Protein backbone atom coordinates (compact mmCIF):
# COMPACT_ATOMS: atom_id res chain seq x y z
CA UNK A 1 0.00 0.00 0.00
CA UNK A 2 2.80 2.37 0.95
CA UNK A 3 4.58 1.87 -2.41
CA UNK A 4 1.57 3.41 -4.03
CA UNK A 5 1.12 6.32 -1.69
CA UNK A 6 4.72 7.44 -1.33
CA UNK A 7 5.52 8.26 -4.97
CA UNK A 8 2.29 10.23 -5.12
CA UNK A 9 3.27 12.24 -2.07
CA UNK A 10 6.60 13.00 -3.69
CA UNK A 11 4.85 14.01 -6.88
CA UNK A 12 2.63 16.37 -4.97
CA UNK A 13 5.56 17.81 -3.07
CA UNK A 14 7.36 18.45 -6.36
CA UNK A 15 4.34 20.04 -7.96
CA UNK A 16 4.26 22.58 -5.13
CA UNK A 17 2.00 25.59 -4.90
CA UNK A 18 -1.07 23.58 -5.74
CA UNK A 19 -4.38 24.01 -4.03
CA UNK A 20 -4.93 22.37 -0.65
CA UNK A 21 -7.49 19.97 -2.02
CA UNK A 22 -4.99 18.19 -4.23
CA UNK A 23 -3.41 15.94 -1.59
CA UNK A 24 -6.90 14.89 -0.57
CA UNK A 25 -7.87 13.98 -4.13
CA UNK A 26 -4.58 12.14 -4.64
CA UNK A 27 -5.11 10.26 -1.41
CA UNK A 28 -8.54 9.20 -2.66
CA UNK A 29 -7.01 7.85 -5.86
CA UNK A 30 -4.21 6.13 -3.94
CA UNK A 31 -6.84 4.32 -1.87
CA UNK A 32 -8.59 3.34 -5.09
CA UNK A 33 -5.42 1.80 -6.47
CA UNK A 34 -4.10 0.11 -3.32
CA UNK A 35 -4.09 -3.72 -3.70
CA UNK A 36 -5.93 -4.40 -0.40
CA UNK A 37 -8.67 -1.98 -1.49
CA UNK A 38 -8.95 -3.69 -4.89
CA UNK A 39 -9.62 -6.93 -3.02
CA UNK A 40 -12.37 -5.31 -0.99
CA UNK A 41 -13.81 -3.72 -4.10
CA UNK A 42 -14.07 -7.09 -5.85
CA UNK A 43 -16.27 -8.39 -3.02
CA UNK A 44 -19.30 -6.65 -4.46
CA UNK A 45 -19.08 -8.57 -7.74
CA UNK A 46 -18.66 -11.89 -5.95
CA UNK A 47 -21.66 -11.20 -3.70
CA UNK A 48 -23.85 -10.09 -6.62
CA UNK A 49 -22.84 -13.19 -8.59
CA UNK A 50 -23.53 -15.55 -5.69
CA UNK A 51 -26.82 -13.92 -4.74
CA UNK A 52 -28.14 -13.73 -8.30
CA UNK A 53 -27.23 -17.37 -8.92
CA UNK A 54 -28.92 -18.32 -5.64
CA UNK A 55 -32.09 -16.27 -6.21
CA UNK A 56 -32.58 -16.81 -9.94
CA UNK A 57 -33.73 -19.97 -11.64
CA UNK A 58 -30.95 -20.99 -14.03
CA UNK A 59 -33.38 -20.82 -16.95
CA UNK A 60 -35.26 -17.69 -15.80
CA UNK A 61 -35.71 -15.58 -18.90
CA UNK A 62 -34.74 -11.99 -19.49
CA UNK A 63 -37.80 -9.90 -20.26
CA UNK A 64 -38.96 -10.20 -23.88
CA UNK A 65 -40.74 -7.35 -25.63
CA UNK A 66 -43.04 -6.83 -28.61
CA UNK A 67 -42.11 -5.44 -32.02
CA UNK A 68 -43.74 -2.14 -31.00
CA UNK A 69 -41.03 -1.73 -28.34
CA UNK A 70 -38.07 -2.09 -30.74
CA UNK A 71 -35.72 0.94 -30.60
CA UNK A 72 -35.79 3.04 -33.80
CA UNK A 73 -31.97 2.95 -33.87
CA UNK A 74 -29.96 0.12 -32.29
CA UNK A 75 -26.84 1.96 -31.26
CA UNK A 76 -23.61 0.02 -31.94
CA UNK A 77 -20.73 0.30 -29.46
CA UNK A 78 -17.13 -0.87 -29.25
CA UNK A 79 -15.71 -1.97 -32.61
CA UNK A 80 -17.91 -0.78 -35.48
CA UNK A 81 -15.73 -2.21 -38.27
CA UNK A 82 -12.97 -4.74 -37.56
CA UNK A 83 -9.66 -3.68 -39.09
CA UNK A 84 -7.68 -5.77 -41.53
CA UNK A 85 -7.89 -7.18 -45.05
CA UNK A 86 -9.14 -10.60 -43.95
CA UNK A 87 -12.34 -9.24 -42.43
CA UNK A 88 -12.86 -6.85 -45.37
CA UNK A 89 -12.53 -9.79 -47.78
CA UNK A 90 -15.10 -11.80 -45.79
CA UNK A 91 -17.47 -8.84 -45.79
CA UNK A 92 -17.04 -8.39 -49.56
CA UNK A 93 -18.06 -12.04 -50.11
CA UNK A 94 -21.07 -11.67 -47.81
CA UNK A 95 -19.33 -13.84 -45.19
CA UNK A 96 -19.89 -16.91 -47.41
CA UNK A 97 -16.65 -18.52 -46.18
CA UNK A 98 -16.91 -17.44 -42.52
CA UNK A 99 -16.30 -20.29 -40.10
CA UNK A 100 -16.79 -20.56 -36.39
CA UNK A 101 -14.57 -23.11 -34.69
CA UNK A 102 -15.94 -25.02 -31.69
CA UNK A 103 -12.93 -26.36 -29.84
CA UNK A 104 -11.44 -27.09 -26.43
CA UNK A 105 -12.99 -29.58 -24.03
CA UNK A 106 -15.48 -31.02 -26.52
CA UNK A 107 -15.89 -34.57 -27.82
CA UNK A 108 -16.36 -33.46 -31.46
CA UNK A 109 -14.62 -30.22 -32.47
CA UNK A 110 -16.65 -28.40 -35.13
CA UNK A 111 -16.06 -25.84 -37.81
CA UNK A 112 -19.41 -24.28 -38.62
CA UNK A 113 -20.36 -22.19 -41.63
CA UNK A 114 -23.21 -19.70 -41.40
CA UNK A 115 -25.30 -22.15 -43.45
CA UNK A 116 -24.60 -24.84 -40.83
CA UNK A 117 -25.65 -22.45 -38.08
CA UNK A 118 -28.89 -21.48 -39.85
CA UNK A 119 -29.69 -25.16 -40.38
CA UNK A 120 -29.76 -25.73 -36.61
CA UNK A 121 -32.86 -24.97 -34.45
CA UNK A 122 -33.38 -21.19 -34.31
CA UNK A 123 -34.70 -18.81 -31.68
CA UNK A 124 -35.96 -15.25 -32.11
CA UNK A 125 -36.19 -12.94 -29.13
CA UNK A 126 -36.95 -9.25 -28.67
CA UNK A 127 -34.79 -8.21 -25.74
CA UNK A 128 -33.29 -5.15 -24.11
CA UNK A 129 -29.56 -4.64 -24.52
CA UNK A 130 -28.13 -2.91 -21.44
CA UNK A 131 -24.80 -1.21 -21.91
CA UNK A 132 -22.46 -0.90 -18.93
CA UNK A 133 -22.45 2.85 -19.69
CA UNK A 134 -26.11 3.11 -18.79
CA UNK A 135 -28.09 3.22 -22.03
CA UNK A 136 -30.45 0.53 -23.31
CA UNK A 137 -31.80 -0.43 -26.72
CA UNK A 138 -34.42 -3.03 -27.68
CA UNK A 139 -33.89 -5.25 -30.70
CA UNK A 140 -35.07 -8.53 -32.22
CA UNK A 141 -32.38 -11.18 -32.50
CA UNK A 142 -32.44 -14.47 -34.37
CA UNK A 143 -29.89 -17.23 -34.15
CA UNK A 144 -29.07 -20.64 -32.79
CA UNK A 145 -29.16 -21.16 -29.03
CA UNK A 146 -25.60 -21.87 -27.94
CA UNK A 147 -26.73 -25.00 -26.08
CA UNK A 148 -27.60 -26.70 -29.38
CA UNK A 149 -24.10 -25.96 -30.68
CA UNK A 150 -22.52 -27.24 -27.47
CA UNK A 151 -24.71 -30.34 -27.56
CA UNK A 152 -23.59 -31.03 -31.13
CA UNK A 153 -19.96 -30.73 -30.08
CA UNK A 154 -20.45 -32.66 -26.84
CA UNK A 155 -19.07 -30.88 -23.76
CA UNK A 156 -16.53 -32.93 -21.84
CA UNK A 157 -16.83 -33.31 -18.06
CA UNK A 158 -14.03 -30.90 -17.19
CA UNK A 159 -15.55 -27.97 -19.13
CA UNK A 160 -16.55 -25.12 -16.81
CA UNK A 161 -16.39 -22.00 -18.98
CA UNK A 162 -17.05 -21.08 -22.58
CA UNK A 163 -14.65 -18.61 -24.20
CA UNK A 164 -15.74 -16.55 -27.19
CA UNK A 165 -13.07 -15.55 -29.74
CA UNK A 166 -13.64 -12.53 -31.95
CA UNK A 167 -12.30 -11.10 -35.21
CA UNK A 168 -11.98 -7.55 -33.86
CA UNK A 169 -8.88 -6.15 -32.21
CA UNK A 170 -8.92 -3.15 -29.93
CA UNK A 171 -5.49 -1.63 -29.54
CA UNK A 172 -3.01 -4.49 -29.41
CA UNK A 173 -5.26 -7.42 -28.49
CA UNK A 174 -8.11 -9.51 -29.83
CA UNK A 175 -11.49 -9.02 -28.21
CA UNK A 176 -12.70 -12.04 -26.29
CA UNK A 177 -15.27 -12.86 -23.64
CA UNK A 178 -16.31 -15.79 -21.49
CA UNK A 179 -19.15 -17.07 -19.35
CA UNK A 180 -19.93 -20.01 -17.10
CA UNK A 181 -22.08 -22.95 -18.15
CA UNK A 182 -25.24 -21.60 -16.50
CA UNK A 183 -25.25 -18.68 -18.92
CA UNK A 184 -23.84 -20.72 -21.81
CA UNK A 185 -26.70 -23.23 -21.60
CA UNK A 186 -29.40 -20.61 -20.91
CA UNK A 187 -32.22 -20.80 -23.48
CA UNK A 188 -31.78 -17.14 -24.49
CA UNK A 189 -28.02 -17.38 -24.99
CA UNK A 190 -27.92 -17.27 -28.76
CA UNK A 191 -25.39 -16.98 -31.58
CA UNK A 192 -27.28 -14.33 -33.52
CA UNK A 193 -26.92 -13.65 -37.25
CA UNK A 194 -29.96 -11.38 -37.56
CA UNK A 195 -31.01 -8.08 -35.95
CA UNK A 196 -34.54 -6.80 -36.45
CA UNK A 197 -35.20 -9.45 -39.15
CA UNK A 198 -32.28 -8.34 -41.31
CA UNK A 199 -28.79 -9.75 -41.59
CA UNK A 200 -26.71 -8.48 -38.72
CA UNK A 201 -25.05 -5.16 -39.69
CA UNK A 202 -21.25 -4.97 -39.50
CA UNK A 203 -21.42 -2.32 -36.75
CA UNK A 204 -23.47 -4.72 -34.61
CA UNK A 205 -21.12 -7.69 -35.08
CA UNK A 206 -21.65 -9.32 -38.50
CA UNK A 207 -21.80 -12.09 -39.37
CA UNK A 208 -22.35 -13.61 -35.92
CA UNK A 209 -22.48 -12.29 -32.36
CA UNK A 210 -23.30 -13.59 -28.94
CA UNK A 211 -26.50 -12.67 -27.09
CA UNK A 212 -26.22 -13.35 -23.37
CA UNK A 213 -29.34 -11.58 -22.24
CA UNK A 214 -28.92 -11.52 -18.45
CA UNK A 215 -25.61 -9.68 -18.63
CA UNK A 216 -24.36 -6.28 -19.77
CA UNK A 217 -23.42 -5.39 -23.35
CA UNK A 218 -19.66 -5.95 -23.21
CA UNK A 219 -20.27 -9.68 -22.63
CA UNK A 220 -22.11 -9.93 -25.98
CA UNK A 221 -19.02 -10.68 -28.08
CA UNK A 222 -19.26 -9.63 -31.73
CA UNK A 223 -17.59 -10.95 -34.94
CA UNK A 224 -17.43 -14.49 -33.50
CA UNK A 225 -14.71 -16.75 -34.86
CA UNK A 226 -14.38 -19.33 -32.13
CA UNK A 227 -16.12 -20.98 -29.21
CA UNK A 228 -13.84 -22.80 -26.82
CA UNK A 229 -14.80 -24.92 -23.82
CA UNK A 230 -12.23 -24.64 -21.03
CA UNK A 231 -11.71 -25.80 -17.47
CA UNK A 232 -10.25 -22.52 -16.26
CA UNK A 233 -9.84 -18.96 -17.47
CA UNK A 234 -6.21 -18.85 -16.33
CA UNK A 235 -3.79 -18.39 -19.19
CA UNK A 236 -6.41 -16.90 -21.50
CA UNK A 237 -5.61 -13.23 -22.10
CA UNK A 238 -4.64 -11.84 -18.69
CA UNK A 239 -6.80 -14.47 -17.02
CA UNK A 240 -9.78 -12.34 -16.00
CA UNK A 241 -12.10 -13.75 -18.65
CA UNK A 242 -12.50 -10.91 -21.12
CA UNK A 243 -10.91 -8.04 -23.00
CA UNK A 244 -12.28 -5.29 -20.74
CA UNK A 245 -11.97 -7.41 -17.61
CA UNK A 246 -8.24 -7.75 -18.36
CA UNK A 247 -7.69 -4.10 -19.23
CA UNK A 248 -9.80 -1.90 -17.01
CA UNK A 249 -11.11 -4.37 -14.40
CA UNK A 250 -14.73 -4.54 -15.55
CA UNK A 251 -16.61 -7.25 -13.65
CA UNK A 252 -16.41 -10.70 -15.22
CA UNK A 253 -19.93 -11.34 -13.94
CA UNK A 254 -21.87 -8.52 -15.60
CA UNK A 255 -25.36 -9.39 -14.37
CA UNK A 256 -25.42 -6.09 -12.49
Amino acid sequence: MSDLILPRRRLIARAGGLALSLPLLSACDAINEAPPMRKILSLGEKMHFASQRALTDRDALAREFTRADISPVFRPNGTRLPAGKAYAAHAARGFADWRVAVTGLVARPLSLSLADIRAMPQRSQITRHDCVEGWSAIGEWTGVPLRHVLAAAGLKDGARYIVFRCADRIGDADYYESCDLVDALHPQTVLAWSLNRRLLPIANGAPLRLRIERQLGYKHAKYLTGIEAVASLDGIGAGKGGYWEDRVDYEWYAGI
Partner: protein
Amino acid sequence: MAARDMPNASASSDQPVNRIQPTRIYRHRLPTRLWHWVNAVTLLVLLMSGLMIFNAHPRLYWGQAGANHDPAWLEIGATRETGFLRVGSLRVETTGVLGRWTDRRGVQQTWAFPGWATIPTRYSLADGRRWHLTFAWLLAIALTLYMLWTVLGGHLAKDLHVRRGEWAPRHIWQDIRDHARLRFPAGEAAARYNILQKLSYIGVIFLLLPLMIATGLAMSPGFNATAPWLVDLLGGRQSARSIHFIAAWLLVLFFLVHIVMVLLAGPVNELRAMVTGWFRLPPGKEGDA
Protein backbone atom coordinates in the same frame (compact mmCIF):
# COMPACT_ATOMS: atom_id res chain seq x y z
CA MET B 1 -42.35 18.57 33.25
CA ALA B 2 -38.81 19.63 33.73
CA ALA B 3 -39.73 23.27 33.40
CA ARG B 4 -38.70 24.01 36.98
CA ASP B 5 -35.10 23.22 36.04
CA MET B 6 -35.23 25.59 33.14
CA PRO B 7 -34.85 29.33 33.18
CA ASN B 8 -38.27 30.77 32.60
CA ALA B 9 -39.28 33.20 29.92
CA SER B 10 -38.91 36.24 32.13
CA ALA B 11 -35.30 35.52 33.05
CA SER B 12 -32.95 37.71 31.06
CA SER B 13 -29.74 36.21 29.81
CA ASP B 14 -27.39 37.87 32.28
CA GLN B 15 -29.05 36.35 35.32
CA PRO B 16 -27.14 33.56 37.06
CA VAL B 17 -30.10 31.22 36.69
CA ASN B 18 -28.88 30.55 33.14
CA ARG B 19 -25.76 28.83 34.44
CA ILE B 20 -27.70 25.91 35.84
CA GLN B 21 -26.14 22.64 34.70
CA PRO B 22 -27.95 21.61 31.52
CA THR B 23 -29.99 18.41 31.67
CA ARG B 24 -28.29 15.53 29.90
CA ILE B 25 -30.36 12.87 28.25
CA TYR B 26 -29.32 9.63 26.57
CA ARG B 27 -30.70 10.42 23.15
CA HIS B 28 -29.13 8.08 20.58
CA ARG B 29 -28.69 4.41 21.29
CA LEU B 30 -25.67 2.54 19.90
CA PRO B 31 -27.37 1.09 16.78
CA THR B 32 -28.48 4.59 15.77
CA ARG B 33 -25.00 6.03 16.24
CA LEU B 34 -23.30 3.14 14.42
CA TRP B 35 -25.73 3.19 11.52
CA HIS B 36 -25.56 6.97 11.26
CA TRP B 37 -21.80 6.99 10.68
CA VAL B 38 -21.63 3.85 8.54
CA ASN B 39 -24.41 5.32 6.45
CA ALA B 40 -22.72 8.71 6.18
CA VAL B 41 -19.57 7.17 4.71
CA THR B 42 -21.49 4.70 2.54
CA LEU B 43 -23.77 7.34 1.04
CA LEU B 44 -20.85 9.63 0.28
CA VAL B 45 -19.02 6.84 -1.56
CA LEU B 46 -22.20 5.80 -3.38
CA LEU B 47 -22.91 9.38 -4.44
CA MET B 48 -19.41 10.07 -5.75
CA SER B 49 -19.02 6.70 -7.51
CA GLY B 50 -22.57 7.09 -8.84
CA LEU B 51 -21.63 10.41 -10.43
CA MET B 52 -18.71 8.61 -12.09
CA ILE B 53 -21.09 5.99 -13.51
CA PHE B 54 -23.41 8.77 -14.70
CA ASN B 55 -20.44 10.33 -16.53
CA ALA B 56 -20.28 7.28 -18.81
CA HIS B 57 -23.64 8.26 -20.31
CA PRO B 58 -24.81 11.65 -19.01
CA ARG B 59 -28.33 11.40 -20.38
CA LEU B 60 -31.54 10.25 -18.71
CA TYR B 61 -34.65 8.75 -20.30
CA TRP B 62 -38.10 7.46 -19.36
CA GLY B 63 -39.33 3.97 -20.24
CA GLN B 64 -37.59 0.64 -20.82
CA ALA B 65 -34.95 1.70 -23.32
CA GLY B 66 -33.09 4.86 -24.30
CA ALA B 67 -29.79 5.65 -26.00
CA ASN B 68 -28.17 8.49 -27.91
CA HIS B 69 -30.77 8.57 -30.69
CA ASP B 70 -33.68 8.74 -28.25
CA PRO B 71 -34.91 11.93 -26.57
CA ALA B 72 -33.33 12.49 -23.14
CA TRP B 73 -35.19 14.48 -20.48
CA LEU B 74 -31.93 15.42 -18.77
CA GLU B 75 -28.54 15.85 -20.32
CA ILE B 76 -25.17 17.22 -19.27
CA GLY B 77 -23.02 18.03 -22.24
CA ALA B 78 -20.40 20.26 -23.80
CA THR B 79 -20.27 22.57 -26.77
CA ARG B 80 -16.98 23.72 -28.27
CA GLU B 81 -16.41 26.19 -25.46
CA THR B 82 -19.02 25.69 -22.79
CA GLY B 83 -20.56 23.06 -20.56
CA PHE B 84 -24.28 22.83 -20.06
CA LEU B 85 -27.07 21.13 -18.14
CA ARG B 86 -30.35 20.65 -19.95
CA VAL B 87 -33.54 19.58 -18.18
CA GLY B 88 -36.43 19.28 -20.62
CA SER B 89 -36.24 22.45 -22.67
CA LEU B 90 -34.46 24.43 -19.97
CA ARG B 91 -30.76 24.81 -20.67
CA VAL B 92 -28.30 26.31 -18.22
CA GLU B 93 -24.66 27.07 -18.91
CA THR B 94 -22.49 25.29 -16.37
CA THR B 95 -18.97 25.86 -17.73
CA GLY B 96 -16.34 25.15 -15.09
CA VAL B 97 -18.55 22.79 -13.08
CA LEU B 98 -20.62 20.50 -15.33
CA GLY B 99 -19.87 19.35 -18.87
CA ARG B 100 -16.67 21.34 -19.29
CA TRP B 101 -14.18 21.90 -16.47
CA THR B 102 -10.46 22.05 -15.82
CA ASP B 103 -8.79 19.18 -13.98
CA ARG B 104 -6.02 19.53 -11.41
CA ARG B 105 -3.35 19.34 -14.09
CA GLY B 106 -4.98 22.25 -15.88
CA VAL B 107 -6.42 20.11 -18.68
CA GLN B 108 -9.91 20.84 -20.00
CA GLN B 109 -12.26 17.89 -19.52
CA THR B 110 -15.74 17.35 -20.92
CA TRP B 111 -17.02 14.64 -18.58
CA ALA B 112 -20.33 15.62 -16.97
CA PHE B 113 -19.34 15.75 -13.28
CA PRO B 114 -15.91 17.13 -12.34
CA GLY B 115 -13.09 15.06 -10.84
CA TRP B 116 -13.48 16.48 -7.33
CA ALA B 117 -17.01 15.08 -7.20
CA THR B 118 -16.31 11.54 -8.43
CA ILE B 119 -14.64 8.31 -7.30
CA PRO B 120 -12.06 7.93 -8.68
CA THR B 121 -11.12 11.48 -9.71
CA ARG B 122 -10.01 10.51 -13.24
CA TYR B 123 -12.55 8.87 -15.54
CA SER B 124 -12.91 5.15 -14.85
CA LEU B 125 -16.34 3.60 -15.26
CA ALA B 126 -14.89 0.25 -14.16
CA ASP B 127 -13.56 1.60 -10.85
CA GLY B 128 -16.66 3.71 -10.23
CA ARG B 129 -18.73 0.55 -10.61
CA ARG B 130 -16.45 -1.45 -8.30
CA TRP B 131 -16.92 1.11 -5.52
CA HIS B 132 -20.62 1.56 -6.19
CA LEU B 133 -21.56 -2.12 -6.40
CA THR B 134 -19.53 -3.03 -3.30
CA PHE B 135 -20.75 -0.18 -1.11
CA ALA B 136 -24.31 -0.86 -2.28
CA TRP B 137 -24.08 -4.08 -0.24
CA LEU B 138 -22.98 -2.13 2.83
CA LEU B 139 -25.92 0.24 2.39
CA ALA B 140 -28.42 -2.59 1.90
CA ILE B 141 -27.19 -4.74 4.80
CA ALA B 142 -26.85 -1.85 7.25
CA LEU B 143 -30.23 -0.44 6.25
CA THR B 144 -31.97 -3.80 6.62
CA LEU B 145 -30.51 -4.31 10.09
CA TYR B 146 -31.34 -0.76 11.12
CA MET B 147 -34.90 -1.00 9.83
CA LEU B 148 -35.40 -4.21 11.78
CA TRP B 149 -33.96 -2.63 14.93
CA THR B 150 -36.00 0.52 14.42
CA VAL B 151 -39.25 -1.43 14.21
CA LEU B 152 -38.50 -4.19 16.73
CA GLY B 153 -36.30 -2.25 19.12
CA GLY B 154 -38.89 0.43 19.83
CA HIS B 155 -37.15 3.33 18.07
CA LEU B 156 -40.08 3.67 15.68
CA ALA B 157 -42.76 3.53 18.37
CA LYS B 158 -40.85 5.65 20.89
CA ASP B 159 -39.15 8.33 18.79
CA LEU B 160 -40.42 8.33 15.22
CA HIS B 161 -44.10 7.48 15.59
CA VAL B 162 -46.19 10.46 14.52
CA ARG B 163 -48.85 11.07 17.14
CA ARG B 164 -52.39 11.91 16.07
CA GLY B 165 -52.19 15.56 17.07
CA GLU B 166 -49.01 16.03 15.08
CA TRP B 167 -50.81 15.25 11.80
CA ALA B 168 -53.00 18.35 12.24
CA PRO B 169 -52.22 20.82 9.43
CA ARG B 170 -52.04 23.60 12.01
CA HIS B 171 -49.39 21.72 13.96
CA ILE B 172 -47.33 20.99 10.85
CA TRP B 173 -47.68 24.60 9.68
CA GLN B 174 -46.56 25.85 13.08
CA ASP B 175 -43.48 23.61 12.90
CA ILE B 176 -42.64 24.84 9.40
CA ARG B 177 -42.94 28.45 10.67
CA ASP B 178 -40.73 27.70 13.66
CA HIS B 179 -38.09 26.16 11.38
CA ALA B 180 -38.27 29.07 8.95
CA ARG B 181 -37.79 31.56 11.80
CA LEU B 182 -35.00 29.37 13.22
CA ARG B 183 -36.86 29.03 16.51
CA PHE B 184 -35.71 25.74 17.90
CA PRO B 185 -37.35 23.98 20.79
CA ALA B 186 -35.57 24.13 24.11
CA GLY B 187 -35.76 22.18 27.31
CA GLU B 188 -37.96 19.11 27.37
CA ALA B 189 -39.29 19.78 23.86
CA ALA B 190 -35.78 19.49 22.43
CA ALA B 191 -35.57 15.92 23.67
CA ARG B 192 -38.24 14.82 21.20
CA TYR B 193 -38.19 14.87 17.44
CA ASN B 194 -40.55 17.43 15.94
CA ILE B 195 -42.97 16.53 13.18
CA LEU B 196 -40.71 17.64 10.31
CA GLN B 197 -37.82 15.65 11.75
CA LYS B 198 -39.97 12.57 12.17
CA LEU B 199 -41.31 12.80 8.63
CA SER B 200 -37.88 13.35 7.09
CA TYR B 201 -36.24 10.51 9.06
CA ILE B 202 -39.10 8.13 8.25
CA GLY B 203 -38.99 9.31 4.65
CA VAL B 204 -35.27 8.64 4.33
CA ILE B 205 -35.16 5.31 6.17
CA PHE B 206 -38.38 3.75 4.89
CA LEU B 207 -38.90 5.39 1.49
CA LEU B 208 -35.87 7.07 -0.07
CA LEU B 209 -33.15 4.55 0.81
CA PRO B 210 -35.28 1.50 -0.10
CA LEU B 211 -36.18 3.31 -3.35
CA MET B 212 -32.46 3.75 -4.10
CA ILE B 213 -31.92 0.02 -3.63
CA ALA B 214 -35.00 -0.95 -5.66
CA THR B 215 -34.13 1.35 -8.57
CA GLY B 216 -30.51 0.21 -8.43
CA LEU B 217 -31.53 -3.46 -8.61
CA ALA B 218 -33.99 -2.70 -11.40
CA MET B 219 -31.05 -1.59 -13.57
CA SER B 220 -29.42 -5.02 -13.23
CA PRO B 221 -30.09 -7.25 -16.25
CA GLY B 222 -29.53 -10.31 -14.04
CA PHE B 223 -31.97 -9.17 -11.37
CA ASN B 224 -34.51 -8.30 -14.08
CA ALA B 225 -34.71 -12.03 -14.80
CA THR B 226 -35.02 -12.73 -11.04
CA ALA B 227 -37.82 -10.22 -10.45
CA PRO B 228 -39.24 -8.86 -13.73
CA TRP B 229 -42.10 -7.22 -11.80
CA LEU B 230 -39.73 -4.78 -10.13
CA VAL B 231 -38.48 -3.15 -13.31
CA ASP B 232 -42.04 -3.04 -14.68
CA LEU B 233 -43.32 -1.50 -11.44
CA LEU B 234 -40.74 1.27 -11.78
CA GLY B 235 -41.74 1.95 -15.39
CA GLY B 236 -38.80 0.29 -17.12
CA ARG B 237 -35.03 0.20 -16.80
CA GLN B 238 -34.38 3.74 -18.00
CA SER B 239 -37.14 5.10 -15.75
CA ALA B 240 -35.50 3.26 -12.86
CA ARG B 241 -32.20 4.94 -13.77
CA SER B 242 -33.88 8.36 -13.84
CA ILE B 243 -35.62 7.77 -10.49
CA HIS B 244 -32.31 6.54 -9.03
CA PHE B 245 -30.69 9.82 -10.09
CA ILE B 246 -33.53 12.01 -8.74
CA ALA B 247 -33.70 10.12 -5.44
CA ALA B 248 -29.91 10.50 -5.05
CA TRP B 249 -30.29 14.28 -5.23
CA LEU B 250 -33.19 14.17 -2.76
CA LEU B 251 -30.76 12.45 -0.38
CA VAL B 252 -28.23 15.21 -1.04
CA LEU B 253 -30.96 17.75 -0.29
CA PHE B 254 -31.76 15.92 2.96
CA PHE B 255 -28.07 15.95 3.83
CA LEU B 256 -27.76 19.71 3.24
CA VAL B 257 -30.82 20.55 5.34
CA HIS B 258 -29.61 18.08 7.99
CA ILE B 259 -26.22 19.83 8.17
CA VAL B 260 -27.79 23.30 8.34
CA MET B 261 -30.06 22.14 11.16
CA VAL B 262 -27.15 20.62 13.08
CA LEU B 263 -25.16 23.84 12.71
CA LEU B 264 -28.08 25.97 13.86
CA ALA B 265 -29.08 23.70 16.73
CA GLY B 266 -25.55 23.58 18.18
CA PRO B 267 -23.02 21.49 16.24
CA VAL B 268 -20.88 20.47 19.24
CA ASN B 269 -23.79 19.20 21.27
CA GLU B 270 -25.38 17.46 18.26
CA LEU B 271 -22.13 15.83 17.15
CA ARG B 272 -21.27 14.75 20.69
CA ALA B 273 -24.73 13.22 20.97
CA MET B 274 -24.26 11.25 17.74
CA VAL B 275 -20.87 10.00 19.00
CA THR B 276 -21.51 9.34 22.71
CA GLY B 277 -25.28 9.21 22.73
CA TRP B 278 -25.58 11.94 25.40
CA PHE B 279 -27.41 15.13 24.45
CA ARG B 280 -27.59 18.32 26.53
CA LEU B 281 -31.01 19.86 26.50
CA PRO B 282 -30.59 23.46 25.42
CA PRO B 283 -31.77 25.72 28.25
CA GLY B 284 -34.42 27.75 26.50
CA LYS B 285 -34.96 31.47 26.80
CA GLU B 286 -38.62 30.73 26.25
CA GLY B 287 -38.85 27.80 28.60
CA ASP B 288 -40.89 24.87 27.41
CA ALA B 289 -43.42 26.96 25.53
